[in-house]
Structure formats: C-alpha cells, structure tokens
C-alpha cells in the first residue's frame, strides 16, 4: 500500500484515500474535433508506460478531492515528487540517480 503526499493537504496519506488517474501531462488537443484519427488515438489511447520515471495523475478522492500530479519510479514504486495540477512538469534530470 502506497503512502502518498497530497500537495493540497500538505501531508502523506494512505493509498486507500486515493484514486490513480493515469498518465500526466497529456495535452488534450485544443481542436479536438479537427485532429486526425491518428492524433486522436495517440492522445486518447497511447501511453508511454515507462519502466522507471513516470509522470502520473492521482486524485485524493477520499480526502481533499483534488487531482494532482506525481513523479514515481515504476520499478521501486517510490514517489519522487508530488505537485499541484497546473504546476510545470518537473525535468527528469531532477530525479536522476534518486530512489532507483
């Protein structure tokens, strides 16, 4: 069971309070009605699914209710960072050598 730091509550809470919400920083096309089928498939279905550093979304669904982003290593399952929705995507260089 993971321990997840909620950037809105300011403390770490049990995974039981959270809902995973998939990969983060996938830009929804501005002109979604006009993008090609390929681009729509890429946006809606394709995922990087990396082994290692993963940018992902969580919702503190049974807590403050907020969606937020996290950087987590999918090998160690360690969280490297959690941050609020809308904050810039942290550079992966920030996490090199950490927690692997």
């Amino acid at each position, binding site marked *: *069971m*993971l*321990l997840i730091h909620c950037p809105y509550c300011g403390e770490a809470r*049990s995974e039981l309070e959270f*809902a995973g*919400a998939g990969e983060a920083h996938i830009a*929804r*096309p*501005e*002109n*979604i*009605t*006009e*993008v090609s*089928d390929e681009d*729509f498939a890429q946006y*809606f279905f394709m995922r990087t699914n990396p082994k290692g550093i993963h940018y992902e*979304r969580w*919702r503190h*669904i049974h807590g403050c*209710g*907020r*969606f937020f982003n996290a950087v987590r290593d999918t090998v*160690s*399952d*360690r969280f490297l960072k959690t941050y609020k*929705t*809308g904050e810039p995507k942290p550079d992966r260089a920030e996490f090199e050598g950490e927690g692997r």
Partner: protein
Amino acid sequence: MNGMPGYDWALAAVAELEGMDNVRILPRTTAFGYYNHNFLALCERLTDHLPNAKANGPRERLWQLRTDEVILATGAIERPMVFPQNDRPGIMLASAARAYLNHYGVALGKRVGVYCAHDSAYEAAFDLKKAGVDVAVIVDSRAEAGDGLAGQAKALGIKVLANNAVVGTKGRLRISSMKVKDKASGKSRSFDIDALITSAGWTPSVHLFSQSRGKLVFDADEQRFVPGTHAQNSVCVGACNGTDAIHAIIGEAAAAGGGVADIAAENARQWTGGMLGEDESADSHARAFIDYQHDVCAKDIRQAVHEGMASIEHIKRFTTNGMASDQGKLSNMHGLAIAAEMLDRPIPQVGLTTFRQPFTPVTFGTLIGHSRGPLFDPARKTPINGWAEERGAAFEDVGNWKRAWYFPRPGETKHDAVNRECRTVRESAGVFDASTLGKIEVVGPDAEAFMNLMYSNAWSTLKPGKCRYGLMLREDGYIYDDGVVGRLAHDRFHVTTTTGGAPRVLNLMEDYLQTEFPHLNVWLTSATEQWAVIAVQGPKAREIIEPFVEGVDISADAFTHMSLAECTVCGVPARLFRVSFTGELGFEINVPADFGLSVWKRIFERAESFGGCAYGTETMHVLRAEKGYIVVGQDTDGTVTPFDAGMGWAVSKKRPILSAFAGSNGRIWWPRIASSLSV
C-alpha cells in the same frame, strides 16, 4: 549480559521497555509482510492460544503499520543435516531439542545422537548431558569443531567423531540406530540411539528484508545470503544480518537505536561452522530429504538439473522443493547448493527464489477482520427501504444498493406481481422509490458552459424551471451515462445519473473541471443522499399528488412535461419534476431524505385510494422497455454510440463531428466535448 544471564537480562530489558509510554510491545505477534513505503502487516494472536472456555473474543488481530523506520532483528533459522533416511521420527533439529529441554522440561530421548556441521549442536548436546540424558556420540562432518568444544565434550564424557558422516538410520516407529562412516578410512559403525539431533548451521531470516525489496548479497565465506542494499528506511541487526559475535550484535543494535553500546557481554561463545547440501560420502541414490513436507530429496534436485533445469526457479517448480508451508525455510539453501554443485556454478549465479509474503501462513480470518456479513460490504438502503421490507417486497442488489424489485401480494408469483404492477401503472398509477439515482448539484456562474462541455445535448436553451434528458459520452463517442437534468436557476443545475454511475460521473466531471476547465466558476456537490425521490407514474398521478403540493400550479397546462419546480410537498421543501420513465404522466418528488418515508406513506395511501400500487425495479424495467427507453449499463456496454442506440436526437447538431467510421456494425465516433464551443 551486564553480569546477568542472557535470558534474565532480556526479561529485565522487556520490563524496562514496558514502562515507557512511547513503547508498545506486541507479544504473540508475527510480522508477516513488509510492503511498499514501510508498510508492515502483523498478526497478533489474541485468544487463539487460550483454552476454548476463555476464548470468546477475536482470535487474531491484523495490524497494518506504517513506520518511519524499521529495525529488523529477525534472527536465523537452523538447517537440518541432509543424509540418507533423515526423515525418521526422532530426528530433529538441535535447537528444537534445546527448546524442548530448557523451556518445557522435556527430554526428547534417553540416548541421543548428534550429527552436525555447526557448533550450536554441541551446546544442545551439553545441555542434554547436563540434564542427565545419555548423549551417545557427536558426529561432526567437519575435521574440527569450534574453539574448545572438543575439550568441553570430553570433560562431559561425550564422545566426538570428527570428519565422520551419518550415512543411514534404522528404526520402525522411530529411530533405533544410525550408521556412521569415517570419511578418512571409509569404515562405518553403528550406534544405538532413540533420538538424533542435527544442525547444519543457521540461515539468516532475510525474508522481511527481501520483501522490502532490499538486495541480498552472498557471503561466500559463510555460504549464506545476507542483507545488502536497503530499498526502504530499515536497519538489520543480529543474526538476520549475518552478524554472529555478541559484541558485534550489541554494537549494531545500539547503532540502530541511535545510541552507544553500554551493555557488557561475557562468556559468549561465537559459533562457527555450517554446511550446505549433502555430505559427499553419502550414497547418491539414497533418500536424503531436504524438503520434509514435499518429500524432496537431494537426488531429486540432481535429477532436475540432469533433465535440463538450470535456473533455481525451474528446479523449484520441477521438484516442488520449498513450495510447502514452510516455503523453503529449511530446504532452500540445501537445494540451491546441490543444484550449484551439479551445474558447477557459484551459488549466486544459480539464483535465489523470491521471498514472498507472508513470512508464516496467516489465516484468511486474520486478514479479513470484521469484513463479514453486513460488514463485508455496506448495504445501502433508501429512507423508504424499511417500508418496502414491511410490505414484503422482493429486493435486488444494484451496486451497493438494495432496491425494491417487486411487491408480491399473497399467492402471487414474480410474474403475477410484475404484470399487476405494470397494468396498475398504465391504468391508474404506481409509486416508485427512485432515491438511489445519483444526484449532482452543479452550481456557479459558469454552470451552463460546463454542462455544455459535459453532455452531448445543448443546455443554453434550457430555461430555469425546465428539465431535459442528458446524455454523457466519453471522448471517443461511446455512451458513458445519462440522466434527467433540471435547471433550478441560471446558475444551478440538478443533475441526475444512473444509480451505479453516480461516483464515476462525479469523478469524471471533477476531472475535467479541475484539469481541463479550471477557469470555469462552477462547483459540484453530491446530493444523492440528500433527497428521497418518490416517482408517481400513471394517468392518475396528478390527482394523487395534487393535495400535497403547495407553491406551484401543477395543472397540465401550467406544469408541462419536463417542468421543474421548487415547492413544498407535505409541507416540506421539495423539488418536483414532471418526468416520465414509463411513458405515462409522471412526477418525481424530491424531498429531504429524513422526510422521505413520511411523504411516501401519505402519497402511497392516496395512490391506493385511486387503485394505485407501489412498484419495483422489475416493473420499472418492463415499463421503460415498452417505451424504448434505454438503461445505460444494461442496454449499452461501453462500445455503443448514441447513433447505435438510436439516440442521435440527443446529440446537439450544432457541433462538428470528429470522424465517422461506418464499420459493419455502424459504430460512429463522436466527440463528447467540443472545444470549439466557446466557454
């Protein structure tokens, strides 16, 4: 220890710890699992050890513990010697013999043999001898025992045969003799014994460390795996860390506690020795057991390698070595060593099978705790549920909800009851508990803009005081949910969802609101349980509810189909919808939940006086199916577009279509959220 016998010192230490208010000691408790982020699972045995008469309470308790740091002091487990016919009753570990003797006052035999490759067996032999048990002989496969042991044995009058091996045993119901071979001369002789204790050394208990995903390293000198790199915030001390000397252990423990050792230890012997696998002098075709539960012998491991199994995982699965309830605590290292020898590879290259939870088996009961019967899963009931129970309704489970299914009268079958309920609704009226429908209140100046983004219908044309069927699609155009949406005010919508869909619809709305459209001034609140919903359907519906309603004119002309009003019903604040899921004249009365039962009773009584009845979900399904209304999740399954469902009318024509693929099944994609709409 500090001048006391070790056991006494330990008791004193426990007493001191018990006196500290920031320490909690859990006896009879096994840490059986070490999971992510320093999460530990413990099994505390509460009453399981008590005689039946005293054991009324819970048998075990599951502790789920999250810690900043974990100190692992899990010790080591003694390994048996591997030799032919080593599974005869009366053969056991030296440490077991010692525990029987010193803790329980039980001597396991009158004339005990010892076979070992490790000093600890000598200590057991000495204890037995001092207690008056005849120790026939200590057979040591090594050329030499640890410091001073041979002399001590001699002083106690115990014969020691170094560089010898046990190559067989005899006995019918228990061991009666063992055959001992001198490895130098090859000569053998027999000893009459009624018990045999063995020790091949100690295997560090690295299970929890390994479960924590710490990396093990192989200590080639001592032929054992010990903790290497920690993956979580933990420290290993003592035998589990491969630390043998008492002074070193004290130092480790003190460091782990953040202090400096102030414990003096004297007269502690440092054990040496240990071996893995089978002594080379044994007959390779004999049955020398390594896994006693699964009857796996040394020769089976060799056979597996012979047949091409080269990874320890393959060997384990081929022989089932280590797959019994001890999960290889006694056998794994022996099996590994035998395989490595056969493969002529170092032990670490053959690998180590994974340590998995639990450390020792744990009852399902411990793990589930209170989760049984009504506490297995919440059974959600509406405010009107009790009334339906009294009326003898049959119920169906819909998600966590219990819903009245139909209301059989004496002698009626299900079909009779449903037929009657259907006819009654069509001919006069029926009353239906629709409280389980999901309700979300969408409030704020941008509520309309938000609704336009979330539903396929257009909402700008919906005036306050009106409601409309809403269809929610996924971005790939497949139907996600539906429900009637009422507009209470310019900036306030009362959205209903399917019973099962309420949480995921709210979640999806929050997702878009928080991440895609955060600029919108609109908020969502779940109001599902705030309201009891009483649907009155049928030609007599208006007449039935009329006397209860105040604050709105519900005449046919004034309160047309798909109207909505805030008013009072039975004197309490209500939201009244004129909607129909039956095709008949219909109203849905929302009242605050605590008033639901009372309002229901009054309406039901009046409905009965008009020949009406209460009806359940089965009748609701028949009635709606007759009219062609769909239920999302029953008539759709995740790959149905509005067009597949014949509901193109619910898709606003003003929005461009993303793409249209007319496959053989006619699926067409349509974008739920048209970002071309200005928000």
